[in-house]
């Protein structure tokens, strides 16, 4: 495992990150380092601090102490829109899209913002980045739904749309908070395979949380296990699976017990 304190060549390095809500220490001294091109799963029981960790990394929440480096630069305390400009994309556990805009407009708006055209008041936006947006919708399997208001799309399609919105910003690092939540098992594997393909094609680094262990062990290159706000274990899927601590707190008792 790379040392987060060196942070050279790391896309994401986190040092001693802490966050408490009242008396609850949600994130309790997390160190984490992610190398470019990684497909990293963050797993852990409910309340382990996964979503809080994501919200800290993405600037949605302010941490109490610790440091966050993104692409070698400290980004602690930067607001989300600035982090986004530096190449951080994310999706949410509860689908977050622009519900009364069409699927196409959702992705177009993300492209407009990414290309810093969002203060332009002179051009008609309808044709701008239309082809790019349609191509991206095609990629996530929503080409046929492009003209529909996104709020009436099926749940799984909304998850795909949110992925497309995040990808439109050409992120270097993509945080996916339970991207398959609420999906049927087959669709889960489909969407994570899609994420893995896109990551492979573009060199995008992905960090995701996921409850379905089948999915995690099928796609993750490395796995970080959180437990009570700290990192319990980290390594390749086989190492994590074999780790006694992880089995005890999370995966269930070892078969031989």
């Amino acid at each position, binding site marked *: 495992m790379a040392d987060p304190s060196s942070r050279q060549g790391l896309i994401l390095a986190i040092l001693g990150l802490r966050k408490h809500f009242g008396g609850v220490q949600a994130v309790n001294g997390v160190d984490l380092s992610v190398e470019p091109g990684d497909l990293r799963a963050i797993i852990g029981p409910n309340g382990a601090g996964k979503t809080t960790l994501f919200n800290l990394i*993405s600037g*949605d929440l302010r941490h109490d102490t610790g440091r966050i480096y993104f692409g070698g630069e400290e980004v602690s305390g930067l*607001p*989300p*829109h600035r982090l*986004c*400009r530096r190449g951080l*994309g*994310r999706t*949410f556990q509860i689908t*977050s*899209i*622009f*519900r*009364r*805009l069409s699927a196409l*407009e*959702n992705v*177009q*708006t*993300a492209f*407009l*913002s*990414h290309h810093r*055209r*969002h*203060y*332009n*008041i*002179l*051009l*008609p*936006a*309808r044709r*701008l980045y239309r082809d790019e947006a349609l191509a991206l919708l095609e990629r996530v399997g929503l080409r046929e739904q492009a003209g529909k*208001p996104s*709020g*009436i799309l099926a749940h799984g399609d909304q998850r795909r749309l949110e992925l497309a*919105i*995040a990808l*439109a*910003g050409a992120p270097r690092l993509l945080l996916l908070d339970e991207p398959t939540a609420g999906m049927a098992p087959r669709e889960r594997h489909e969407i994570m395979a899609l994420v893995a393909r896109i990551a492979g094609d573009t060199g995008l680094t992905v960090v995701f949380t996921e409850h379905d262990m089948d999915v995690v062990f099928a796609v993750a290159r490395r796995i970080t296990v959180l437990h009570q706000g700290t990192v319990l274990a980290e390594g390749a899927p086989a190492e994590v699976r074999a780790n006694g601590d992880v089995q005890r707190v999370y995966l269930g008792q070892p078969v031989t017990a």
Partner: protein
Amino acid sequence: MPRAGWLGLLVVALAVAPLALPPFFLQLLTEIAIVGLFATAFNLLMGFGGMVSFGHAAYFALGAYAPALLVKRAGLPMLLALPAAPLAAAAGALLFGFFIVRLSHTYFAMLSLAFAQIVFTVIFKWKALTGGDDGLLDVWPPAALKSPAAYYYFTLAVVGLSLLALRLIVDSPFGYALRSVRENPRRARFIGIDVRRHQLVAFVISGAFSGVAGGLFAFYNGSVFPDFAYFTKSFEPLVVALLGGVQSFYGPLAGAFGFKILEWLVSRQWPVYWPLFLGSIVIVVIVVLPYGFVGLAGGRPWRTRPAAKA
């Protein structure tokens, strides 16, 4: 008939109206155009930005008082003074909006109302400059624009250009981003949009065009009074936009037309009962016509019902 055909017909009808209509109706149409612009500017915030202002009279009043003061105190002619309307209103919107956009929903509305009441109070109390309760009288356009028909054409031209500009803004990348802020501020931040700043820019644009409406009204009315900034005036664009349909760009215009025509019809028969009528109409529209008057014409720009949020 295609949309462009209807629009052409409307333009021709408005252009020949002075040949067919007596001055009273030209004045009514002038007022409709001014209220329509005010409500459309207001709706840039409400319909497209998801921000409900209870204090837009402040920018209407700044737009009315700035050119009126230049005419009365500096002796400028109307055409030189009028550009001060959007400038003063935009400056006020920038100053107040800086604080207002930091809040959302009810708090946004109440702070906008509070600032408008400050504007009202300053105008009301600063007698030496504004004339206080007596207002500023004899604020007239030059002789060439003084007749109802001439001022009607002038108003139509200014309102038409303003609406065109607002339409461009709504359809621009800025407008798309504004809608995304309305739909989901959190998501908007994560596509790189500085939500507060975007809201502030929209607030200033909305304030500036409200100021244009105020400036036009000042010279139409020939005088300006503190109650231009009073909170009852702030509810005018809200009611007009609601009646016409906030989901559509043209809703507030339709609302202004319906509002003013109904006001005239009711007031000339039963002047005391107009507020009662208005209240009843608002209730009926909200319950029966969630898309406002434009909903009658099948206009459902968002296609999904507003209730489908959540």
